[in-house]
């Protein structure tokens, strides 16, 4: 009986040591990570210079209407009369008629500024982030239209579904203080 008790006591001691070791291990992990805590959080953003406007942003976002929309860097824009982000490949006429437009939701507004310049503005409530206009502007124009994650809509998933599906690896985590990567005038 005494021997049996000893066995149990030893087993209990071993178990308690194992328990303490586990707790110490968790403490160790915490200690290791505390040194690397980030003061601020990050959000997802895509690098417009890597983006190839494949259209995945419109379909892979967990939100029904993607958090990614096209945005416009006005300083880069050429204010072209014939905008390749606005007009389809073979427009019937150079005016704002729906049949001439490239955008599937009619989210781009074209307004006359002065001869021969036109301003193009994106209505973000209509834009679905398909990137058709981005592709057109990148291929034939200045590339002033580009896609960005809009943080008023983005739910900031732990792993962004679009990032997982992005063929060009354009998505990355950026600090919350600088949540946008905007296109700038290139003086190269």
């Amino acid at each position: 009986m005494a021997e049996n008790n000893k066995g149990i006591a030893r087993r209990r001691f071993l178990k308690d040591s194992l328990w303490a070791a586990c707790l110490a291990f968790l403490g160790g992990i915490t200690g290791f990570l505390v040194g690397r805590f980030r003061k601020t959080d990050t959000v997802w953003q895509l690098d417009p210079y890597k983006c190839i406007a494949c259209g995945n942003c419109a379909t892979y976002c967990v939100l029904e209407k993607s958090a990614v929309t096209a945005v416009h860097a006005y300083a880069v824009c050429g204010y072209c009369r014939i905008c390749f982000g606005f007009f389809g490949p073979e427009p019937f006429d150079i005016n704002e008629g729906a049949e001439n437009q490239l955008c599937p939701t009619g989210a781009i507004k074209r307004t006359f500024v002065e001869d021969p310049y036109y301003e193009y503005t994106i209505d973000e409530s209509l834009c679905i982030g398909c990137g058709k206009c981005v592709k057109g502007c990148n291929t034939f124009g200045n590339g002033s239209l580009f896609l960005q994650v809009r943080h008023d809509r983005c739910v900031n998933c732990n792993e962004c579904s679009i990032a997982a599906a992005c063929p060009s690896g354009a998505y990355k985590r950026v600090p919350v203080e600088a949540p946008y990567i905007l296109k700038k005038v290139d003086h190269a």
Partner: protein
Amino acid sequence: MMRFGYIIIGISFFLCLCSVVSAVERFPPPQFESDYQQPLTTTPAPCQSIYEYIDAVVLLAALSLSSYLVLKKRSRRAIFILMVFSLLYFGFWRKGCVCPIGATGNIILSIFDRDYAVPAVIVVFFLLPLVFTLFFGRTFCAAVCPQGAIQDFVLLQPVSVPDWLESGLRLFAYVYLGLAILFAAIGKAFIICRYDPFVSFFRLSGNFNILVLGACFLVVGVFIGRPYCRFVCPYGVILRQLSRISKWRVTITPDPATARRASAETSDCVKCQLCEDSCPFGAIREPTANWPIYEYGKGKKRLAFFIILLPIFVFSGGWLGFSLKTAVSRMHDTVRLAERVYLEQTGQVKGTTDASLAFRATGKEVKALYDEASDIRAKFGPAGSLLGGFVGLVIGLKLIGVSIWRQRTGYEPDRASCLACGRCFQYCPREHVRLKNAREAMSKSQ
């Protein structure tokens, strides 16, 4: 119309000429004569992250309450109410992200990637349930995890799963955990988040395939209790091991002494067998006597055999993992891209994919891509053998585990498998005695 065509031809020609210098403005930004003000690109600010800190506090409160309800109050109804709260708060209100299961990926990535610093809230989410499990058993699974809650909610017709099938299917969870670590460490991808089956339900939108996967889990979950928790959850694998050595844990009988000391040598179970079929997760173990004398010799030999077999399992697992490196590394984006580009370069396939187009657009050397891919593939070799060895070890230890005769004086929940849901409490006649005594004490004091 013709003029437009000429413009396109002209521009294409122009593009061909200066395709190398791609980022230059083709059309100079205009100098406006009118008083036109150029608008700026809008940048709406991200939502405040204050909610994350509230989440951490709610998690702590929910874990404490859950532990109290499971171990002290012993009320299935109260546990269920807390479970519904967690499902609504962590699930439908906070959209199931971030959760402790997915946080595993962040922790692994921050250990292996020097540049990735993990947010404090995610560390709290990962560690708090582990610490609570080390003290109180799997009370996180019982009533805090929204993933578990949504499955527990649909469990209407529990069917028991045979032990061998349960252990076999559970092996998948170990492989999944291993793969999740592998991909977080090498590929910087969180596959736990990517294949989370229930988060689409919480968001009421998402990838169609994942939605179907989640629906399958819920349909199966009507009959087989919590299939994700038992056979898939990689975080559950860690919780199982910690729960084995927890300080306090669920007991079917309400005896505080056994609950505190958590050892099998004293139990006030009356062996009435009423609780035997009450567990929908097959986590209740029957009482056993001493090792039967005719079994003893055979059992000893079997145990020795499996102990000798253990290193063989580990090594063959490691070898298998190593030889699978080519197949497994193909799940990595860069390796897949390099293979695709190689096939295109050698003319074995026609056409391009989005990824190979994007790669060509960067203007990087093909050789650099091949080097990067072979580096990554080389990493998958040792990592794969570690994973294979780990799976071999799990199989070997399980076989040793089933060959050890465990002596139990009463019915008790399995230390690892018990999800602390509290269904068994009301089946115990001792529990009814406790409740009656408590009621009498209440009425006396009034």
